């Protein structure tokens, strides 16, 4: 139904978001609008003050290692280490963390399931199950493969989540900018990031006003209203873009988006720990190969 497509931002009351977060997730499982709570978590994280370039590169390196090394022990270590960083160091509640990790779980299950099991008309394989016309069969080896693959994917995801749950998007973008990502892309990312929240707000207001006039009373009307709101948002977006450009020009904007950033020092201890962690991963791989 059209109404479920819409993101709902739970942070209307702005400055209290720090305390609001912990109450929101009573149970595991994600709600629509998780995107914006990830954003809020990143601002509330206790490791937010860490140097963003350090966090981004640690997460990327870990991600690459857990994929390249392709080793279940490495994957397990990565999962635990990233959970430690996010929950213990970052101060995110376990429920919130698990609920965020459940977002990709359906994709992972769907993806790995086909690797674990196979179909056949003959009763072959180590274990098989007769389902009328065909057999579903599997073996210990392929189940193991499926399980290890899941671990690997989870390791990669938790490495990415460590980054996104501790580093606000603007900082990630500025790291990308320093990593020579084309300026156009980085500037667009900055503007889009800021814009998303404005348009979500506009959308919420329009939806509420449509709702108060019975705009969502049945499915047909809902679809109709949804279309109207979507086209209206496009117009509002154009208008806002115009107003934005005026405001930017009024403050001497002349083609380059320049933002002031706080320099966050990276501590030697952090680099030492990160290096040790990477070495441990590689050693672990070497010994269990």
């Amino acid at each position, binding site marked *: 139904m059209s109404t479920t497509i819409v993101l709902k931002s739970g942070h209307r009351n702005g400055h209290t978001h720090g305390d609001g977060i912990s109450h929101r997730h009573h149970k595991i499982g994600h709600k629509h609008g998780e995107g914006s709570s990830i954003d809020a978590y990143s601002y509330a994280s206790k490791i937010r003050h860490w140097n963003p370039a350090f966090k981004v590169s640690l997460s990327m390196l870990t991600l690459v290692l857990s994929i390249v090394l392709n080793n279940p022990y490495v994957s397990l270590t990565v999962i635990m280490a990233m959970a430690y960083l996010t929950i213990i160091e970052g101060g995110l509640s376990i429920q919130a963390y698990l609920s965020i990790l459940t977002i990709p779980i359906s994709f992972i299950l769907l993806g790995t399931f086909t690797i674990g099991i196979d179909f056949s008309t003959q009763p072959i394989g180590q274990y098989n199950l007769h389902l009328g016309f065909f057999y579903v069969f599997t073996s210990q080896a392929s189940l193991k493969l499926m399980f290890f693959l899941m671990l690997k994917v989870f390791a990669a995801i938790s490495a990415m989540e460590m980054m996104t749950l501790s580093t606000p998007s603007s900082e990630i973008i500025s790291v990308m900018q320093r990593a020579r990502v084309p300026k156009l892309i980085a500037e667009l990312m900055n503007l889009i990031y800021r814009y998303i929240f404005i348009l979500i707000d506009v959308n919420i207001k329009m939806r509420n006003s449509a709702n108060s006039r019975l705009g969502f009373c049945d499915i047909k009307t809902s679809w109709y209203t949804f279309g109207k709101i979507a086209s209206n948002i496009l117009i509002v977006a154009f208008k806002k873009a115009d*107003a934005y450009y005026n405001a930017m020009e009024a403050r001497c904007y002349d083609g380059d988006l320049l933002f002031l950033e706080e320099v966050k020092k990276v501590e030697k201890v952090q680099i030492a720990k990160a290096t040790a962690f990477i070495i441990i991963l590689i050693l672990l791989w070497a010994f269990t190969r």
Partner: protein
Amino acid sequence: MAETILEIRDLYYGYGNGTAALNGVSVDIYEGEKIAVIGSNGAGKSTFFLNMNGVLTPDQGKIGYRGTIVNKKNLKELRKNIGIVFQDADNQIIASTVMAEVGFGPMNLKLPKEEVLKRVEEALTYMNILDYKDRPPHYLSGGEKKRVSIADIIAMKSEIIIFDEPTAGLDPLNAQMLEEVLGKLGSEGKTMLISTHDVDFVYRWAERAIVFCQGRIIADGTPLEIFQNKEILKQANLKQPTMMEVYDLLVEKHLLEDTKAYPVSTQAFKELLGNPYLASRPEKPPEKEKFKVVKI
């Protein structure tokens, strides 16, 4: 006489739909003035501001900044010295942290980073929002966003600050905060232009009022002069400030002597009522009677 900062002569501007948003506007702005720009919706106030700052280029007419005519080359100088606080803070705030946002203007002025940081700290302290430095704007409340948008302009250290309907959408507490900030800026001798629909605010704050009507300036003078002129009020769809209405009412009922000394604040009104020049009773009235006067 204070020095002229801006000289605006015969400004014409049309939005392309045939009607002129500005239809021959001429005005001089002097150092340290507190100007209220009033007029109904669509009278051309915002267009006028955008022209003043150089965001919009007038179809005709010229703008002189400190004696030099503004052209394409020195446009940046004009923008640097004339800052606009836009009506909707969400249309102004561009960066994803408060610090980056307030630093946006100074960064565009290509100032060294230390200077930018210093200015940002100063502006945030000025607006009392230093604690919000690392917050993203989308988790701030309306009043907080307004403060950020004012800090934006304070950090640019512009000579003239323009406020486009600053009190729109603010709660009374935030509106009071805004007025305090305006008072503070005024005491530092900043030149300010404020567009507003709040005639009571114009009456108590402004030294000079400019009335816009259909793209023209139909009156330019002290708020008292303008609010006494019924013709102008009618033309621009304005009403008299409550304080003046009450004063006139008291005069009409012969409860006050008509000295044309309109009080600016409630405090001044109280003093006026307390002094012995009450028309009905030249001698000091007893406490009870005085209370009655106030009640009317």
